């Protein structure tokens, strides 16, 4: 269960031309107020209630607040107002390659990622084996990953990101990987994860993801929830809205 009530996220920033020490000192002495931070209202008055079993797609144009909302749900950003309640653990994937090092071997990178995901240390070795097997990269895992093709890297990060089945899953973009054969395997893996988790929230632009994987859609526009409801219906409206 994920519940969000009256959520606001208002960022503030100082215009670059006002951020230098010299300008700030001048403003302070002359008591001018130009340097006071300006505000960006990234999310406003968001109210959402997801039950266990909900597979939620988040749609909206770039800059509408999708990632900010996901960061709040994932617990890495504290909102400026409102309440967020999440039952159960959350696993979030924003950048599946975070922390990976090109000079280190595939095996080392699996370990780095698992440590960052706070995977229990005592089970790491068996997990590494499991991921290695799933990735089908074989002996290549002993090589530094800078020798990998783009496809191999994606396979590896997919295998790692999906190796843990979380209670609640929050992903910034649908995870998929690889050549025709692997795609099938990746789909099966995603289906398994989605079936396991209580609530899934995914931001996506893809009609396929929204219509085939989600049972709810939230359409964000300019920091507000514009519409929410049935995936097919809302996505159609969304497409038509932006055609105009």
């Amino acid at each position, binding site marked *: 269960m994920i519940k969000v009530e009256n959520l606001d996220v208002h960022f503030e920033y100082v215009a670059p031309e006002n951020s230098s020490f010299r300008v700030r000192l001048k403003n302070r002495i002359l008591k001018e107020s130009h340097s006071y931070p300006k505000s960006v209202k990234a999310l406003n008055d968001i109210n959402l209630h997801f039950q266990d079993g909900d597979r939620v797609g988040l749609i909206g144009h770039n800059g509408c607040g999708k990632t900010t909302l996901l960061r709040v749900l994932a617990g890495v*950003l*504290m909102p400026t107002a409102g309440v967020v309640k999440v039952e159960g653990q959350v696993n979030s994937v924003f950048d599946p390659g*975070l922390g990976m090092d090109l000079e280190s071997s595939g095996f080392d990178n699996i*370990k780095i990622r698992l*440590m960052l995901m706070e995977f229990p240390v005592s089970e790491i070795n068996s997990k590494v084996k499991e991921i290695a097997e799933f990735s089908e990269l074989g002996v290549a895992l002993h090589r530094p990953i800078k020798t990998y093709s783009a496809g191999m890297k994606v396979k590896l990060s997919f295998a790692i990101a999906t190796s843990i089945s979380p209670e609640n899953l929050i992903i910034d973009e649908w995870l998929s990987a690889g050549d025709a054969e692997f795609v099938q395997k990746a789909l099966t893996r995603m289906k398994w994860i989605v079936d396991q988790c209580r609530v899934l929230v995914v931001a996506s632009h893809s009609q396929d993801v929204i219509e085939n994987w989600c049972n709810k859609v939230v359409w964000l526009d300019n920091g507000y929830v514009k519409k929410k409801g049935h995936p097919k219906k809302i996505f159609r409206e969304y497409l038509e809205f932006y055609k105009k």
Partner: protein
Amino acid sequence: MKSNLNLPRADGKKELQSALLKWRVWTFLGEIEIKQRYNKTLLGPFWITGALAIFVGACSFIYGVLFKQDLAEYMPYVAAGYIAWAYISGYLTEACSVFILHENYINQLRLPILIYPLKVVWRLLLTLLHHAVVLFVVLFAFGGINPLGILLSLIGLLTLSVALFSIGSIFAFYSVTNRDIPIVTISIFQILFLITPIIWPASALGKRMEIAYFNPFYHMVEVVRSPILNGFSNEWLVHLSVTGFLGLLGTIILIRVISLKQYQLGYFL
């Protein structure tokens, strides 16, 4: 910069605790970084040792003549002093930008925020271990190793680590909203290296010892160095008290700073 953000306070003590408890994560990340840095080099991490050996050798040779010092006394003095200094200045200059450099991590992971400064502490302690090889060689060549001295020095090192970690982490928080701090810190440490008795003997100050005594960095260096060279002394207790006091004060302030600033990081990174 004044912030008008309306954010709740974090629990500073709990944050500190949970970061310390996740020692497996920060020790792992620190070790990985050492490996990455010296990957594909001839000596690997032993470049750290080699570079220090060259520094101590050259420094002892030139400054030993300049300050008219006996090499047998001066060389261990420089080696131990510089090792302590490399740890102190290395940590404090790096700590300032640690949150800025880990922006991606902080914006994506729920790991306790202090993991990142702790990782730097751990990496620099490992560096110090590589440095210590040079010190032991020097000590061995010039008269021997005092086991009690080593033990006291380790106590000093632990106290120093607490002080550095807490003070550096406070700077890390403030550097996020004031990006001048990391830059200024680097220049300050260049000056501090010259005005702190590290490669020159404090005794050269003669009657002006207060120049050293009012410099906290003198105590931070000596808390590690003096027992190695002279064993136990009342002087060492003074250094230990000053460093310990800084650590205590730093930790209290840090807990407060965490509770005020922790949730702001996501907004300023």
